[in-house]
């Protein structure tokens, strides 16, 4: 199936497709590279932000740690003065805005007979006033509270896990505790400072590298400490949130954070591919910033979109440019096509379109021009040849007519003789001949076959026939007739042509036959009883080969009712398509069967029909001549 699209359209489409493909590959590579770079830059940027916030938080925590450590040193100088200890806690809260409560929780029995002793000051959430009290009683056994027990057991300062302070104004708190030891290294007290960490959520909620970015802090137990929407996740650990969301990647991030690792991991945030950078704080907490890749790459994606749009417009313009340019460039081809069609229709002088460049189309035009010229010459030549051929054919027809008129067409109607002859040349003119005439009660007859075919053979046949009629008419014996004919045609026979010829003279009164065979096929004699046989003949050379050749004659006595069948080799050598020849046997067979056909004409036509039946319509390859003489 061929496309009906024009060459210019197809070429333009190909250029467009190829260019688009190249462009898409380029855009893809550029997009992947730029996305990678931007994602890396975003990760770096988020990590820097994270470090900055961690540093800020740590600075604040360190301030509190320093204050508590200082207090832990100071109390040792005031162990004898309970009021001073109360005062120290009160001053600690009053002078540190970030500290919402401070306690010096002494060991059991610090005051003899007393289980609890713990001066404690705190800032009232409503009035902001700093209030002081004794902490610890039967319903608040601080010895088993995290802030006391854990640093005591660990023997080192400890930031408690965040807790919700029910009594202190519904705040999210953490407590920094420092164990203090006496001279014999026994635990003396645990000094604490409470830190309201609600501000942490405010701080982290301001960290938003992108619209849907989040920063959060978790404690050592994975619990959220600070988050933009803390209320929604209060009481949740990163694992519980991850489990609730069915997000294993988030749980893995939480695991890394709890183990104090620093790094970056990808995960799905609300169905969107995101990354989280995370890093630990000195106190065991960990913070993270999450960013959605879609937002990170939004600007680049927009830029790529614009680029694709510009490219699409550019490609469209390129297509139009290609299309019209190619159409213009190839328009002569269309004109050439029309011209070729005109030439094909016989208008050989059709004007070719003008083209002034010597490029491929210019060369095509030259070729066209050459072709047109050649065609013109060829047609002219063809016309001449055709004309000559027609003339030649006409002349051949005339020659055929002449040749056919050279042999007798009128057959005598006599009681003592029935003779008929027919000649069928293979071409317009043939090289066979036959002749007969009656003179002085004798029938002179001849059948010949000139070597070759066509015009030269017909000319040779005409000469031979004229010679026979003239020489035989002299009443000479048959051997002399052939000798004279031979001498006559041999003289000046430069073409090397020859003719086989059978001549005879039948005395119509007696049936005596004198004959001479010059290299011709043996004739068939059918006796009155219908028995056919080839005539016994003395061989002679064909006529025209050797001047002065001594031909020898023979004689035969024919009984009344006999038949002579003369023919040329066109009969016996008639071929089928399979190259099988009619042959002598078939001829004899026919002669036997045709003995009952009394008319010479009918017998001749029957033999011709027999030959044609045998060849089965195969083209006649030699002249055929048949002569039947019924005596």
């Amino acid at each position, binding site marked *: 199936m061929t496309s009906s699209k024009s060459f210019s359209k197809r070429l333009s489409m190909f250029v467009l497709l190829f260019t688009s493909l190249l462009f898409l590959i380029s855009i893809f590579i550029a997009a992947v590279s730029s996305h990678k770079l931007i994602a890396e830059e975003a990760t770096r940027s988020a990590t820097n932000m994270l470090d900055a916030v961690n540093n800020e938080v740590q600075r604040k925590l360190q301030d509190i740690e320093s204050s508590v450590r200082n207090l832990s040193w100071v109390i040792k100088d005031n162990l004898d003065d309970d009021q001073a200890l109360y005062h120290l806690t009160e001053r600690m809260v009053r002078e540190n805005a970030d500290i919402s409560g401070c306690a010096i929780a002494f060991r059991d029995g610090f005051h003899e007979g007393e289980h609890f002793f713990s001066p404690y000051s705190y800032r009232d959430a409503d009035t902001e006033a700093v209030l002081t009290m004794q902490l610890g009683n039967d319903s*608040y056994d601080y010895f088993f509270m*995290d802030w006391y027990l854990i640093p005591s*057991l660990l023997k080192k300062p400890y930031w408690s896990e965040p807790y919700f302070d*029910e009594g202190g104004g519904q705040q999210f708190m953490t407590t920094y505790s420092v164990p203090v030891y006496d001279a014999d290294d026994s635990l003396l007290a645990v000094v604490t400072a409470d830190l309201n960490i609600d501000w942490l959520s405010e701080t982290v909620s301001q960290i938003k590298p992108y619209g849907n970015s989040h920063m959060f802090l978790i404690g050592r*137990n994975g619990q959220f400490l600070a988050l933009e929407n803390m209320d929604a996740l209060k009481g949740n*650990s990163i694992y519980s949130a991850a489990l609730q969301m069915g997000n294993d990647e988030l749980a893995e991030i939480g695991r890394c954070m709890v183990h104090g690792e620093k790094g970056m991991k990808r995960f799905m945030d609300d169905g969107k591919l995101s990354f989280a950078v995370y890093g630990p704080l000195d106190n065991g907490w960990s913070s993270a910033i999450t960013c959605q890749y879609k937002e990170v790459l939004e600007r680049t994606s927009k830029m790529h979109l614009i680029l694709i749009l510009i490219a699409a417009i550019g490609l469209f313009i390129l297509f139009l440019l290609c299309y019209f340019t190619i159409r213009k460039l190839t328009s002569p081809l269309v004109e050439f096509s029309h011209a070729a069609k005109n030439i094909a229709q016989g208008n050989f002088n059709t004007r070719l379109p003008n083209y002034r460049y010597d490029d491929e189309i210019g060369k095509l035009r030259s070729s066209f021009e050459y072709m047109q010229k050649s065609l013109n010459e060829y047609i002219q030549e063809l016309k001449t040849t055709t004309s000559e051929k027609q003339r030649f054919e006409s002349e051949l027809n005339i020659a055929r007519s002449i040749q056919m008129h050279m042999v007798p067409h009128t057959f005598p109607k006599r009681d003592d003789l029935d003779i008929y002859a027919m000649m069928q040349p293979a071409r317009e003119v043939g090289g066979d001949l036959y002749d007969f005439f009656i003179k002085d009660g004798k029938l002179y007859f001849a059948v010949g076959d000139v070597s070759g075919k066509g015009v030269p053979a017909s000319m040779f046949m005409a000469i031979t026939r004229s010679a026979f009629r003239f020489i035989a008419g002299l009443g000479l014996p048959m051997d002399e007739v052939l000798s004279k004919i031979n001498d006559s045609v041999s003289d000046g026979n430069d073409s090397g042509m020859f003719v086989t010829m059978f001549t005879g003279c039948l005395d119509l009164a007696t049936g005596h036959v004198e004959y001479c065979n010059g290299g011709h096929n043996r004739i068939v004699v059918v006796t009155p009883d219908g028995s056919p046989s080839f005539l016994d003949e003395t061989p002679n050379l064909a006529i025209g080969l050797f001047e002065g050749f001594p031909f020898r004659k023979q004689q035969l006595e024919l009984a009344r009712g006999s038949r002579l069948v003369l023919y040329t080799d066109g009969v016996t050598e008639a071929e089928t398509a399979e190259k099988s020849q009619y042959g002598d046997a078939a001829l004899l067979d026919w002669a036997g069967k045709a003995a009952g056909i009394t008319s010479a004409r009918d017998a001749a036509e029957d033999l011709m029909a027999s030959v044609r039946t045998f060849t089965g319509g195969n083209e006649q390859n030699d002249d055929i001549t048949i002569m039947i003489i019924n005596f």
Partner: protein
Amino acid sequence: MKLRVLFTALVLHTALASAQKLTFVPQWTPQSQFAGFYVAKEKGFYSDEGIDVVIRHVTANSNETPMDILLSGGAQIVGQQLFQSIQHRSGGDRIVNVMQLTHKNGLCCVGRGPVASFKDLDGKRVCKWLIGYAEICEMLEKMENVNIDWQPCFSLVNLYVSGAVDASLCYSYSELLQLDLAMGGIPEENIIRFSDYPTLNIPEDGLYVTEQYYKANRETVEKFVRASRRGWDYAREHIDEALEISWKYMMENNIVTNHTQERRMLEEYLSLQVNPRTGKPDYAPVSQEGFKAIVAGMLDKGAIQNSVEYKDFVK
């Protein structure tokens, strides 16, 4: 007509007056471990029985136990573990078990590393709850012939996470889940389950009233038990709704928790209600033979000094 109106008003008045008020104290602060009771209250199952139940909780940082509240008259019915309750009864507190909630012991010991048996904890510091459990810990030490440094505390989870202890006692439906969520997973090889030790696999939660109250208000107690069972059956069939109802109680009491933890707790707790004999959940009391074995074990290990009779204790 006037007579009929007067009669109706009298019946209504009598019905209202007979809606007996009852205070119930579960073992701990609000959590989905008590979902069945919250459901019974919120779905009106207690009202359907004609009792007016008030659910009161202990506070996390208090030394006061539900049994203390029961014995001081602050509540008429409390939730308590079988082990501690037998101890109370053995010590002379005339309390009776009116309903058994679980058939399996949920106590575990979680090490910071792999622990194959209690012997791996010999000489190690293990935290336990501040109140109670002293006797079961002693019983465990005697049984396994180990000496564990038990560290009482309020928050097992924080102590464990801080690294201040080598292991922690915990419940499979509570602290174990919290630790799992805090640590991002606890390997099973770090856990020793009490239920794997026949002597320690003592069924846990049950409902207790004083013998005196039971005798005087048997019908009321039975109404409470019936409604509570209905509440638990409903909770088992409607876990989401039960969690939603429980969540309300937790928020009202400013409990800091999360949905994942509470769902896992309820699911684990419901699994402890499956009777190992039938493979189905029920509230069948401890069998007489089982009870005798528990008491004998406790006597043998010194957890109690006086025997407790099944017929006196289980109602």
